[in-house]
């Protein structure tokens, strides 16, 4: 669980170029972390690669916060 959270946060920090302290679970990618809509697509692609999962479009649209991503991956991840 915490391992997933750490890996998700690391990807967000690297991809969006934000400070780790900003990447709280309630932080919204677009409103709080300065992501644009393409960034959110790329984040989903990065999560898919990191965790070897597929995130369908309808699920991806619901992933709006760091916590949403962690929860989705925790309930769907193989690794």
């Amino acid at each position, binding site marked *: 669980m915490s391992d997933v959270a750490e890996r998700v946060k690391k990807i967000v920090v690297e991809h969006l170029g934000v400070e780790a302290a900003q990447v709280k679970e309630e932080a919204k990618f677009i409103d709080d972390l300065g992501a644009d809509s*393409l960034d959110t*697509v*790329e984040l989903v*692609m990065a999560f898919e690669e990191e965790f070897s999962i597929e995130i369908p479009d309808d699920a991806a649209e619901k992933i709006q916060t760091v916590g949403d991503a962690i929860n989705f991956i925790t309930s769907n991840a193989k690794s």
Partner: protein
Amino acid sequence: MFDLTGKAALVTGASGGIGGAVARALYGQGAAVVLSGTRAEALEQVRASLGDRAHVVAARMDDAADIERLAKAAEAATGKIDILVNNAGITRDNISMRMKDEEWENVLQVNLTGTFRLTRAAIRGMMRRRFGRVINITSIVGVTGNPGQANYAAAKAGLIGMSKSLAQELASRSITVNCVAPGFIATPMTDALSADQKKAILGRVPADRLGTPEEIAAGVVYLASDEAAYVTGQTLHINGGMAMI
């Protein structure tokens, strides 16, 4: 200039006059090229005339599942798609009063919807790699219109609007999206015109001759190159002066 060594291209409609010339030109600049189209034997002939860096993946552009398969197979063959040339196109000419729904729909399906689907599949990898060139082969008639081609002109105009939208969405990822708009080019598609039709057309071409597929391919090579990185959302008209837009 315009060196494409190390790049991988996917060309649809590659057994046709323009598509074949585009594939040869990209290959000649050093790119690996995946040739796609519906006619597997004709594609094999093009591949045989090229060499080790050429691959064939036949696919139907009116079939969503086949388009997905094409994108995956092309990436599997060359490892990536850096350059996508959407050249596949069909005509079903008829005056509008007589045009069947089927004639309209088939042309839109292949020329516009199929192009969108393949582009959507290909830009995923381009975004990841922060490099991409999408080049859509439209037509002069998409800008000027042409009697008997309401369906074809609508699809080709649609490609221009689609390209401008994609160009704006993807520019920040170093992906450019442009169109090349041929005028009247000597290909099997224009061979079907009667001598009178050709004469009438040439009367409107200041260069006083049909263009060659190689002249279209040269425009594609430019837009595919690193040198054209700052060109996006544009339509390059190659038409002997037939329309100056």
